[in-house]
C-alpha cells in the first residue's frame, strides 16, 4: 500500500507568538518549530497501516529550508522517503496556492491513501485536505478518529456534533486526522540514525509542472491584510457583599456593562 502524508512545520504550541507591527506573518525570532500535531496523527496512522499491511510511506511538505527538519523527524519516526517543495516561489499562506502545489506534486506520484492533519495549528485554515481531494478528483473524509482499511475501501469514523458518523469511501481517498486517532510515537535513536540515509528530495516549481504564476503568493486567492495580537485582557472585577446582594450586582453588571444577557 502506498501512503502519502501531507505535513507542515508549525511553531511549537508552547511558543509565545509575536507579531511585529505592520508585518503580515508572525515573527520567527527565537521560535522553535515542530511537526503540526494533527499531522503527527497522520504520520502515526500511516506507519501503523504500513506495519500491518506492508507498503511505504512518503511525506510531503511545502515550506522554507527549515521545514526539512520536520521531514527528518517524520523519517526518524519511520516514514520511508520525503519530498520537500522548497522554492521561494511556493511560499504563501494561501490555502488554494498550497493545495495546488501539493496536488500537482501528487499527480506525479502513486498513492492508495493520502493522510493529513485536519488543520494546521498556526493559521487554522482547515482547508488543505479538502482542497487537494477536490483538485485530484478523489473522495475525502475529514476529522477522522478511527480508520479501518479493507480491500479497495476505507471505513472512517468521524467526529460530528454530539456523536460519531461512520463513512465508507473507495480508495484512493484523502483522510484528515483528528486527535484520538492514535498516540504518535517518538523518534527512537535507531530511527534517527536510519533517517540520515533516507531520501529527502527537494523540488522547485518547475519540478512539479507548475508555472510560477499559479502557485505561491502569485497564485494566491487571498491576501493577508493585517495580523494583530489579541488585545491584553482587562483586569477582572470582584463583587463583594452578601450572596444575595452580590448575585443581584453580578446580574446587573452582566446586563448593563458586559451586555451578554
Amino acid at each position, binding site marked *: 500500500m502506498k501512503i502519502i502524508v501531507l505535513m507542515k512545520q508549525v511553531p511549537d504550541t508552547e511558543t509565545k507568538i509575536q507579531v511585529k507591527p505592520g508585518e503580515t506573518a508572525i515573527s520567527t525570532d527565537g521560535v522553535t518549530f515542530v511537526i503540526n500535531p494533527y499531522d503527527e496523527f497522520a504520520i502515526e496512522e500511516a506507519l501503523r497501516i504500513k506495519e500491518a499491511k506492508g507498503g511505504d510511506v512518503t511525506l510531503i511538505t511545502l515550506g522554507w529550508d527549515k521545514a526539512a527538519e520536520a521531514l527528518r*523527524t517524520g523519517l526518524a519516526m519511520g516514514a520511508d522517503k520525503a519530498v520537500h517543495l522548497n522554492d521561494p516561489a511556493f511560499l504563501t499562506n494561501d490555502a488554494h496556492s498550497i493545495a495546488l502545489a501539493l496536488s500537482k506534486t501528487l499527480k506525479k506520484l502513486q498513492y492508495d491513501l493520502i493522510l493529513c492533519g485536519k488543520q494546521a495549528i498556526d493559521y487554522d485554515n482547515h482547508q488543505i485536505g479538502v482542497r487537494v481531494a477536490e483538485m485530484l478528483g478523489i473522495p475525502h473524509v475529514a476529522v477522522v478518529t478511527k480508520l479501518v482499511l479493507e480491500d479497495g475501501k476505507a471505513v472512517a469514523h468521524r467526529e460530528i456534533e454530539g456523536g460519531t458518523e461512520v463513512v465508507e469511501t473507495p480508495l484512493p481517498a484523502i483522510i484528515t486526522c483528528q486527535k484520538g486517532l492514535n498516540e504518535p510515537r517518538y523518534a527512537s535513536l535507531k530511527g534517527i540514525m536510519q533517517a540520515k540515509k533516507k531520501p529527502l528530495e527537494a523540488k522547485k516549481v518547475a519540478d512539479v509542472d507548475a508555472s510560477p504564476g499559479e502557485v505561491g503568493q502569485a497564485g494566491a486567492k487571498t491576501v493577508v491584510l493585517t495580523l494583530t495580537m489579541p488585545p491584553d485582557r482587562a483586569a477582572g472585577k470582584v463583587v463583594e457583599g452578601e450572596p444575595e446582594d452580590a448575585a443581584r450586582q453580578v446580574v446587573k453588571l452582566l446586563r448593563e456593562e458586559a451586555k451578554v444577557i
Partner: protein
Amino acid sequence: MDFAFTKEQLMFKQEVIRFAEKEIVPRVREHDLKEEFDFESFRKLGEFGILGLHFPEDLGGSGADVITTVLASEALGEAGVDGGLTLSLGAHTFLCADTIYRHGTDEQRKKYVPKLASGEWIGCMGLTEPNAGSDVASLKARAEKKGDAYVLNGNKMFITNGPIADVAVVYAKTNPELKHAGISAFIIEKGTPGFSAGPNLIKMGVRTSQTSELIMNDCVIPAQNLLGEEGEGFNMSMQTVEWDRSALLAPFVGAAQYMLKRCATYANEREQFGRPIGKFQAVKHKLANIRIFVEAARTLVYRTAWCKDQGRALNHLEAAVAKLFLGDWSLVPTNDGVVLHGGYGYCHEYDMERIFRDGRLGPIGGGTSDIQKMIISKLM
C-alpha cells in the same frame, strides 16, 4: 577535545526532552511528595529505549556512543525529570546492567541485559555496607563456595532500587583475608531464598528512588551466578566509575539547566518595586551564578564521556574533579534558584526546593567529596 555534536545527537536530545516533558514530568511532583517510585514512567523510559541506549541491538539496546547516552541523561534533567528517577535509571542501567554486560558470560548477558534494557526487570547494585562506605574494601559480606553453589551472608546499605529490584549485582568477599583482591561480584535474583530487602529509607532528596538495605542470610545461588572470576569484583566496581562520573552525573547538570530556565522566566515575570525582579543586579547575579555552574559542570561531564568514547583510560583525577564539582559547587547555585523564587521557591509546587534537595546527594553518593579530594591530592 571536540564537543561538536552531530545533527543526530542533537535531534535525539530534543526528542528525549519532548518525550520526557510530555510523558514523565507531569507525574514527578506527585511521586516526589509520596516518596514513591514511578513504575509507569520507568516502563515508558524502557519503551522509549533510554534504559539500554549503549547496549548493542541484539541485546535490546540502540548501540549508542557514550556522548549520546550522556546527552540523553542530561536531557531528562533538562526536561524537569526529578533526580530520584534519573538516579534509579542510573543505578539500573550503568551500575547493574552494564556490569553484567561488560563482565558477564554470553549466557548471563542474554539472560539479563535485554530484560533490563526494556525495563521489564529493574536492577540494582550493592557495594556499600552498613559499616563499609568510603572504605569499601573493608566490606564484610561473605561468599563461600560449596560444591556448585555459593552461600552468601551479609548486609548491603543505601542500595538504590533495593526494594524494587528483580536482579542485583552484589559484591562479597570470596577471600576475607584479602582486602580489594578478595572481592567478587555475583548476580542474585529477587525471590532467592535467604535474600531480602529492607524497607525504603526516607531521604532528604531523590525521593522517588527507593533505597534500602539488602540482606543475605544463607542465600544460596548457583556458582554460574559469579560475574567474571573470583577476586575481580573490586576492579569491576571501579569500572562503573566512568559511567558514574558521566551519565549518572549528567541529569544533575540538566536539572540545573532546567532551574536556570525557570529562574529566567520567573525573573522576567515577577514584579516588585514596580519592575521585574530580573532588573535588579542581585537577581541577575543569581542567574549568572547558575549559568556559570551549568557551563563548567557540563564541560567536565562531557569531557569524561568524550574520553570514554575515544577509548582512553579513565583519568581518575579528572573524574574526581567532575564528581566533586557537581556535588559541592552546586550548593550555592541551586540555593540561588530557591531564593530567586522567594517564598514560592520554598514551596514544592515550584520544583526549586526539590532540585536543591536532590542535588545534596552529590557530595555523598558514589564516593564523598572528601574522598574525591583525597584522590585529587594524591594524583597531583
